[in-house]
């Protein structure tokens, strides 16, 4: 057997974790699912609004927000972190818009400027006050989901709930879902047709900043325990994969949740097999699911396109427009 890849042992990779370590792995799987679901839900709207890169930006620029919040409040409590991230997230959005609107610099370049600067400020702050800040840039970037079950467990009304990060993430995922259900039509119309939304009296700016705030909260609650790699990937992968499989928004939202659950579970098993980072394994499995959807999607997949092209040689995407009342 090749030495480079650990031997694949079905029992060790698939059975053992659930037989011996169910207590541990259930929390990792749940955490992965909550992160992917919350990120995926918000991410769908980022993709639809052509703002995928803004998600990337905000997930980096919350770092100084967390650091400053910590320095000011001298506390690592959840509300303080959320507040810091929220302010940093909104500030990033504002900076991007100001650079984009008030200079000749285009939006993608503005995004690059805003988040790299804020991230660098965060790194400086942390190294400057390293003795006072119980934060580690390394940990924020490569936080490890495998340690999640070790976090202190929390209780509610005397009932044991689970490790604190998992409970918090579950709450944030549920909140994201609730807000998307409540404001479904406002989000839909302002994403699809901002002009109509404005003429209906729906404030596009408010929707934009509300979405960015939600994104900041999702990012910061996921960040510390799972790292930036998983967060950034899960903002885009679930939505992108689901959009290949369906063209109905509610179905797309649901499918991105399924994608999150599958990448989380498959990622755990991949990382047990390869003895590698769990977050990275989850991302790789998420990407593998994307490739599967890309190839095999019944409507938009490479295979379906290839097959239909073979049967109907002149089927082109830009066919002449059909006549009225066809």
């Amino acid at each position, binding site marked *: 057997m090749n030495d480079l890849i650990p031997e694949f042992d079905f029992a060790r990779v698939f059975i053992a974790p659930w037989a011996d370590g169910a207590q541990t792995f259930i929390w990792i799987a749940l955490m992965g699912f909550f992160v992917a679901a919350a990120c995926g839900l918000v991410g769908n709207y980022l993709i*639809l609004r052509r703002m995928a890169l803004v998600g990337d930006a905000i997930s980096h620029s919350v770092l100084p927000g967390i650091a400053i919040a910590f320095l000011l409040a001298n506390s690592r409590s959840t509300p303080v972190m959320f507040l810091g991230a929220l302010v940093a997230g909104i500030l990033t959005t504002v900076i991007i818009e100001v650079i984009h609107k008030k200079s000749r610099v285009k939006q993608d370049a503005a995004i690059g400027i805003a988040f790299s600067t804020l991230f660098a400020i965060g790194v400086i702050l942390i190294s400057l006050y390293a003795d006072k800040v119980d934060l580690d840039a390394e940990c924020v970037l490569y936080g490890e989901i495998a340690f999640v079950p070790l976090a202190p467990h929390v209780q509610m009304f005397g009932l044991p709930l689970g490790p604190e990060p998992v409970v918090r993430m579950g709450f944030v995922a549920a909140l994201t879902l609730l807000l998307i259900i*409540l*404001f*479904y*039509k*406002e989000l*839909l*119309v302002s*994403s*699809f*047709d901002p*002009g*109509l939304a*404005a*003429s*209906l*009296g*729906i404030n596009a700016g408010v929707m934009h900043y509300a979405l960015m705030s939600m994104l900041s909260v999702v990012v910061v609650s996921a960040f510390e325990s799972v790292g930036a790699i998983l967060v950034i990937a899960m903002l885009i992968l679930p939505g992108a994969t689901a*959009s290949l499989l*369906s*063209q*109905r*928004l509610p179905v*797309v939202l649901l499918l991105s949740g399924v994608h999150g659950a599958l990448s989380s579970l498959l990622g755990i098993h991949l990382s047990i097999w390869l003895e590698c980072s769990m977050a990275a394994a989850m991302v790789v499995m998420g990407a593998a699911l994307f490739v599967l959807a890309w190839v095999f999607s019944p409507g938009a997949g490479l295979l379906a396109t290839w097959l239909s092209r073979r049967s109907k040689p002149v089927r082109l995407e830009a066919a002449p*427009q*059909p*006549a*009225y*009342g066809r």
Partner: protein
Amino acid sequence: MHDTAPALELHDLTVAYHKKPVLWGIDLEVPQGKLIGIVGPNGAGKSTLIKAVMGLLPISSGWVKVFGQPLKKSLQRIGYVPQRESVDWDFPVSVMDVVLMGRYGRLGLIKRPTKEDREVARACLEKVHMLPYANRQISNLSGGQQQRVFLARALAQESDLYFMDEPFSGVDAATESAIITLLHELRERGKTMLVVHHDLPTAREYFDMLILLNMRLVAFGPTSEVFTNELLQTTYGGRLTILSDVAEAVKEQRILR
């Protein structure tokens, strides 16, 4: 109480992009129940005018009244048909979803479209002969069909004053005549429509009144009065020689008919 108020009243409306005025001191009083064309050369500020009036663009000076009321109080009485190219037609929604958006203004926050809203949406789709497409994904539509979906959505808004941004651009002849029939029907029901249009020869046929625009208001009045060589010359500047040829050709065509 306000039933006799002008559908739209603008006073000294000025709009600027980056301190450069695009529209300058527009005064306008649009009566109710008319089908009005907004014509002028490219860059004359036709789209800017309707966007500014609806509050989608900031106004540098002047004011807007809709049915004698400030804009904010009359949002429900305004319907909008944006340019077809302004949205992403690959968006994961169906024809029905798009038409239902026309109902959102009446629903208010959080509330979902009801069965009645769906009935209204279906009726509006029927009016533009698009009901069989109700469950289609919008990316599978032709340009003319997309435009008719937008019109159905505007109908679903059940407004009294409509702003339409180039509804005739890039549609097939059949859709064009379907749209015109619809606009006439709306006019008979007392609705007022302001339509951005860039084709002069048809403008003369289609509209009761014309707004001739080139950054300033050149003229506003019944088509028969303002569709004159002199006023068009002022609106279009030197390029009119070609245009007057076209207009002449149309005139001849009419005689032949």
